[in-house]
């Protein structure tokens, strides 16, 4: 089931958008942007951005917005920690795994 790389990235991005869509619009955009930044390699992001110049059909509008927005201008990410810290036992500032 080898897929063309752009099609695969679109599928992945849309899946990510699907999760964040439950949040208010700006937060969803921020959530998606951060997710791509945290987990995608620079090359994936680059291929995706370039690919979007040709194809935008079938790409979730939230994704398009997330890719366009400058990270500094993003709203609160739904994953942002309110009282971020290490907790008593902690020492762990976990992201994901």
């Amino acid at each position, binding site marked *: *089931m080898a897929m063309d790389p752009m099609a695969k990235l679109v599928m992945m991005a849309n899946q990510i958008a699907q*999760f964040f869509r439950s949040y208010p619009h700006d937060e969803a955009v921020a959530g998606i942007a951060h997710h791509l930044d945290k987990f995608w*390699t620079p090359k994936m992001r680059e291929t995706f951005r370039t690919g979007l110049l040709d194809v935008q059909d079938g790409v979730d509008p939230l994704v398009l917005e997330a890719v366009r927005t400058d990270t500094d201008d993003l709203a609160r990410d739904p994953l942002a920690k*309110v*009282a971020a810290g290490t907790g008593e036992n*902690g*020492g762990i500032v976990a992201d*994901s*795994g």
Partner: protein
Amino acid sequence: MALIEEFNSGTPIRPAAEQVTLTIDGMQVSVPRGTSVMAAAASMGTKIPRLCASDQLEAFGSCRLCLVEIEGRRGTPASCTTPADNGMVVHTQNERLAKLRKGVMELYISDHPLNCLTCSANGDCELQDQAGQVGLRDVRYGYAGENHLDGETDASNPYFSYESSKCIVCNRCVRACEEVQGTFALTIEGRGFQSRVSAGGTNFMNSECVSCGACVQACPTATLNEKSVIAMGKPEHSAYTTCAYCGVGCTFKAEMQGETVVRMVPAKAGKANDGHSCVKGRFAYGYATHKDRMTKPMIRAAITDPWREVSWAEAIAYAASEFKRIQGRYGRNAIGAVTSSRCTNEETYLVQKLVRAGFGNNNVDTCARVCHSPTGYGLSTTLGTSAGTQDFRSVEQCDVILVIGANPTDGHPVFGSRMKKRIRAGAKLIVADPRKIDLVKSPHIRADYHLPLKPGSNVALINALAHVVVTEGLVKEDYVRERCDLHDFEAWARFVAEERHSPEAQADLIGATAADVRAAARLYATGGNAAIFYGLGVTEHSQGSTMVMGMANLAMATGNIGREGVGVNPLRGQNNVQGSCDMGSFPHEYPGYRHVHDDDTREIYEKMWGRPLDRDPGMRINNMLDEAVGGAFKGLYVQGEDIAQSDPDTHHVTSGLRAMECVIVQDLFLNETAKYAHVFLPGASFLEKDGTFTNAERRISRVRKVMTPMGGYGDWEGTQLLSNALGYPMHYEHPSEIMDEIAATTPSFAGVSFEKLDQLGSIQWPCNDAAPEGTPTMHIDKFVIGKGKFMITEFFPTEERTGPRFPLVLTTGRILSQYNVGAQTRRTENSQWHEEDVLEIHPFDAELRGILDGDLVALESRSGDIAIKARISERMQPGVVYTTFHHAKTGANVITTDYSDWATNCPEYKVTAVQVRKTNRMSDWQARFYEEDESLKRVAVMEAAE
């Protein structure tokens, strides 16, 4: 080194609120209330003779050897069944007692063969010991009367035999099977003199027995004895080590003769297993010395060439020159590595270090990607740590147990036994699983609710459960107000309260009745301490991460996190999957789950490792394979993993591997991935190296070297050689130095060292100044994240849909006797229980297709097709078929697709749309598999060695 003898108090000593003080043989002793006189005596060093008592079992009181005198009481009560009490004055030895005990022993011995010198248990037999202890010198009754000396031997089990002539009918085996294992396979048949142990009226192999060995360990005589002991004799030294199979992480004593394992005995000192084990850990270690072990480094220029055995120096030099060439030609990012959840923490740490500092990129990933990566993402997002919240022992405090997408009695057997024990003692049980797994109904266990989910509907279920909790006013408001982020909670509560999430609205989609879902939710929320245990049935879905968050939401809303008996507990697959994640095996994070973006963390490692580090996340396994197919990724170092068998969509994986120019495989065997490799480095089994594993409870335990590595080096040494040859120097003399580096750079491991592990036995991270002895229960008083974070978990059906062409859903799983890709267990007698993978299919679906039990069927999906034998089974629902993937030749992953979890790309192994039809031939893939199993595994015949 000597043989480790573990203390046995005869009956269990359990903590109690109150201590009682008594006098035994003139000495005062205090013990927790409820302790027997026998155990009280043992705790002060006094051994009262005994035969039917052992401290892993409840007292039974049948042998009458443990009689004592208690002042003020009549007769001679059995010390094993008499609870100690304040002011008691006990005498354990006097003439009267000695005479009585001799009489008892005489009766036993008169019906027991006296060939002690040639008996396999000679020197390790409690009957022999007790005869010595009571001073038995002669036996008045001869063998003339009726006896059992010609009793039969049942040698049907491949690992142990039952020699009935030696049985003293002490009942220990029967009780071990009931109380410790929970299988109830054994009974005592007949009465009085006629009574004999019976495996349900048949032999052990044909019985319900799951070959855990608890009865063998409990047997005081040679009646139930390991065949290895019968063949080899007694071990002479032993070392504590950790099982290398599953995420329970049982502690064992490896009992040795020289460098040969005589037997593996689960250690009572092991906090994960309390002296119990399953068939894999106890018996299936033979793979470690199997003839298929590859012990010589090998290289070849092309995968179609035969392998050529070479020296380590040549193999390493070749591997390094290839990796350098590839990076020179295709760029820094053209190589990467896969770490192993089978290897130690130290080895995993070293591989990711080699990648980040030596390769100069972050292209490192691990097999946890394909099993529990959503656990990390989901739990860290909601609670703040990428790990389970409890220790296993916590299950003893559970009132309600919710098992979702896990099959503990097969996948995590020792924990399964512990869970069953708690359920027998009264805890309520809810099972959410497409199949009627054993827990749903087995001897003395019956689930209060079985929610027979349709594969892929987990998130709909968790939302429906949450809907009931929120709309019926079952939220623990004080807890939520104090500990959680209220903004997020309110958004979540509004979301799940919507009518569309109600059990009634979702029942068809979920597959369970609305009434059962409602009742289960009420039970979970109001039944006392409620704990969730889950497995790959949760994570291996396109919404795996969402589901993990959903479970954390439910637990927070009902106040079920932060003390014993509650929590959200992933049952981890492989022995060190927790550890490999902790050690920075993911391309976006350093050890301790710190993102590569984080400047402070990067600085710590740049300083420690002396190289500039890349701040961008690297490639996941699937990206590496995609890039390989695309031509940009050319070299992969795979330590102890078999991605060609275990990863989804085999066609895609093998095309990726074929497209690479240098694949280095370091493994025990020439596995499926090695078919596509250019360099083979012999791996070392867990018996051949020092290190640590971390189990599903975050428990770090020692692995100890008991034999010389067959290939010459531990895996960590192989990595170090490669690193040095690549020009990034590493100079560790011992794995403990690697752990010291981990501790120095990772806050949650700050207090861990081999020395401390030797002292404490094991440590649950976080272990640091705040918790110098580790942390059994997480999130007490406060979540690690700060405020607990509720996440909105909208349900979306997977893209993988059934339709006219592929009308059935295939889901995959595993069974007790085999382990994952089967590389180890297939090379042991465990195959007697599972010779091949089969396809379980419901009678209705089978009939529709004219399929009979045992027919060969073609199993076909959008990805590919295989032929497999059908087994008709009512454990499946109609519309769902099931198989395991323990055998490479089955090629179950030829069928699975590359759909994956939205957040972590954990593949969706649990849902594939398929069609099943009768066939009379193997699939093209299988035909090619057999062909390539020859052609890609050839080893050149060597001239006489240099």
